[in-house]
C-alpha cells in the first residue's frame, strides 16, 4: 500500500519553503517529487531592469546566509567583462569574508541538523558559537548579515590593523569549539545513531546528478570550485579539499566540521599575508558588450552566475544558479529507501535552507483517509520510532 506524503511547502518557521511529494510504503520512501517556486521572487528579471550598482544590493539579498558568495560571484562576472583586475588586498579580504561566511553557515547547519535529530543541546551550543563569527564579521563590515562589503572593482571596507588582534583571538576560540564538535560528533551515540548509514549517496549517483559542495565531497569526490577554478586569493593560499568516503549524513557532518577548521587556517594565512595597497579600483558605470561565467564555492557548494552585457548601464541577462538547486535531484535520490523518520535529517543533510517540513498531509491511498502532522509531531514520531528500535 503506497501512501503519498507532501512535505512542505511553507511555514514562517521554515527557512525556505519547498515541497517534496513523497510516496511511501509502510516506513520506506518509494519516490520523491520536488516542487519549488514558493519563494521565486523573479530576481533574474529584476536584475535586467536595474543598473550594475543597484544589482549588487539585489544580488546580495538572494540569500541571507550565503549573501557574500552570491555578490562575489556577480562582481567577478562583471569585473571579467570590464576586463579589470581587482587589487590583491581586495582579493584577500574577499577570501577572508567568504571563509567567515562558511564558518557561520556550517555552525548554523550543525545546529539545524542537531535540532532535526532531536539533539537540541547541540543546536543551542553551535548557534551560541555562531554568534562569535557574526561578531567578527560585524567588526570588519559593520553588519552581521548582507555585509555590503563587495563592490564591482574590489571591496568597500578595509581590514585595519586595529581589529586584527580581536579577529585572531576570535579564530582561536572558534578553532577550539570546532575541535570539540568534531570529537563529539564522532563519539556521541545520539549523533551516530541518527546519521551513520542514513541518506546514502553513491559517488556515481552524485556525479550523474551533478551534486555540488559538501554533499558530493561526503561521497568521496573532491569537487571544490576553490581548487578547480580558483578565484579571489585561493590560488595563493594553501588549503586542503576535504572529502569523506562514508556517503551518509555522518560524512556530510564531518566534511563540514573539517571545513570549518580549514577555513580558520585559510583566514589565519590570509590575515598574516594580507598585501598592502588599495582595496578597490574605480570602474565605469557602463559595461561593454560581453559575457562571463563566474563560479564561487558558496558554503553549500558551487554557485554560478552568468552575466551578459550590451554596453549600457543595465545587464541583458543575469543568471543565478544557487547550490541548493543543484543538490535537489541528489536529495530526492538519497530519500528513496529511507525511513519516514529519517526524512528530516536527510533533507537537513544537504543544507538546503529547508531543514524539514512543517505541515504534512498523510493520505492513505486505499481508504482515502487524510490526517496531518506538523514538524514537531513528525519529530516526536521519529524520536519514538528510534527509541523502539
Amino acid at each position, binding site marked *: 500500500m503506497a501512501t503519498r506524503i507532501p512535505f512542505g511547502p511553507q511555514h514562517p518557521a521554515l527557512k525556505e519553503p519547498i515541497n517534496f511529494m513523497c510516496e511511501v510504503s509502510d516506513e520506506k520512501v518509494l519516490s520523491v517529487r520536488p516542487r519549488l517556486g514558493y519563494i521565486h521572487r523573479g530576481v533574474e528579471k529584476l536584475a535586467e531592469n536595474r543598473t550594475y550598482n543597484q544589482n549588487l544590493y539585489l544580488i546580495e539579498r538572494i540569500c541571507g546566509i550565503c549573501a557574500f558568495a552570491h555578490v562575489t560571484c556577480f562582481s567577478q562576472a562583471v569585473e571579467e567583462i570590464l576586463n579589470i583586475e581587482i587589487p590583491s588586498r581586495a582579493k584577500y579580504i574577499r577570501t577572508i569574508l567568504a571563509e567567515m561566511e562558511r564558518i557561520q553557515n556550517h555552525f548554523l547547519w550543525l545546529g539545524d541538523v542537531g535540532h532535526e535529530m532531536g539533539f537540541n543541546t547541540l543546536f543551542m551550543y553551535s548557534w551560541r558559537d555562531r554568534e562569535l563569527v557574526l561578531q567578527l564579521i560585524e567588526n570588519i563590515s559593520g553588519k552581521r548579515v548582507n555585509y555590503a562589503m563587495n563592490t564591482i572593482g574590489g571591496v568597500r571596507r578595509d581590514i585595519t590593523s586595529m581589529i586584527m588582534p580581536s579577529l585572531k583571538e576570535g579564530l582561536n576560540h572558534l578553532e577550539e569549539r570546532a575541535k570539540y564538535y568534531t570529537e563529539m560528533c564522532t563519539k556521541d551515540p545520539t549523533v551516530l545513531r541518527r546519521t551513520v548509514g542514513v541518506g546514502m549517496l553513491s559517488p556515481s549517483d552524485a556525479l550523474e*546528478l*551533478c551534486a555540488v559542495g559538501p554533499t558530493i565531497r561526503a561521497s568521496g569526490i573532491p569537487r571544490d570550485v576553490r581548487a578547480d577554478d580558483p578565484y579571489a586569493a585561493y590560488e595563493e593560499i594553501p588549503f586542503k579539499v576535504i572529502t569523506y568516503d562514508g556517503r551518509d549524513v555522518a560524512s556530510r557532518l564531518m566534511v563540514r566540521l573539517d571545513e570549518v577548521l580549514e577555513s580558520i587556517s585559510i583566514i589565519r594565512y590570509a590575515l598574516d599575508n594580507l598585501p598592502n595597497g588599495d582595496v578597490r579600483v574605480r570602474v565605469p558605470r557602463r559595461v561593454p558588450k560581453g559575457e562571463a561565467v563566474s563560479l564561487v564555492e558558496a558554503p553549500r557548494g558551487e554557485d554560478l552566475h552568468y552575466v*551578459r552585457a550590451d554596453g549600457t548601464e543595465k545587464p541583458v541577462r543575469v543568471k543565478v544558479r544557487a547550490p541548493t*538547486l543543484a543538490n535537489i535531484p541528489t536529495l530526492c535520490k538519497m530519500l528513496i529507501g529511507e525511513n519516514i523518520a529519517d526524512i528530516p535529517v536527510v533533507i537537513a543533510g544537504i543544507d538546503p535552507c529547508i531543514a524539514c517540513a512543517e505541515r504534512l498531509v498523510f493520505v492513505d491511498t486505499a481508504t482515502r483517509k487524510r490526517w496531518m502532522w506538523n514538524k514537531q509531531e513528525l519529530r516526536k514520531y521519529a524520536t519514538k520510532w528510534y527509541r523502539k528500535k
Partner: protein
Amino acid sequence: MKFTKGRLLEKAKEISTPRARRMSMTINKTDFRKSMKKLVDSEGFKHLSTITGIDVGPKIELIYHLTRENLVLSLKVKTSKKNPVLPSIVNLIPGAVLYEREVHDLLGVTFKGNLDLSPLLLPDGWPSDVYPMRKEWAPQDIRKAMEKP
C-alpha cells in the same frame, strides 16, 4: 589543455577562450544532440552546472554550462521563439532534469524526451502563454497577467 580547439567539436562555430579555464562555442540545433553526446561520453563533460536561457529577439538562446576538470564550457544553441523545441539531455546527464524544467517554465522551451515538464517554479494556474523571462514581458505586464481572473 589536452585538445586543440577544432577537435573538441568539429561542427562548432564562434569558438572563443575568453580567459583561462573558460571556453565558449556555438552549435547548430541540428547537431546539438550529437555534439552533446560526444562532449559527455568521450570528452568527459559530465557535470552540468546549469542551463541559461536568453531571449535574443526572434530566437531563444540556450547556454549549457558544462564542466570538466579545470574547464568550464559554455555550449550555445539557438532555437526559434515561435516553436522552441530542443532534444532533452536528461538521458545523458540526469542532473539536467530541473534545469530543463526551469527553462521550460520561464522561457517556454519544450525539451523532447524530458517526461516531466510540469511547473517547477511558477505557481499552479499560471497563464499558459506568459513566459516571464521573455523580453516582451515587462515586470508590470507580468503582474497584470497574474492578476487577471
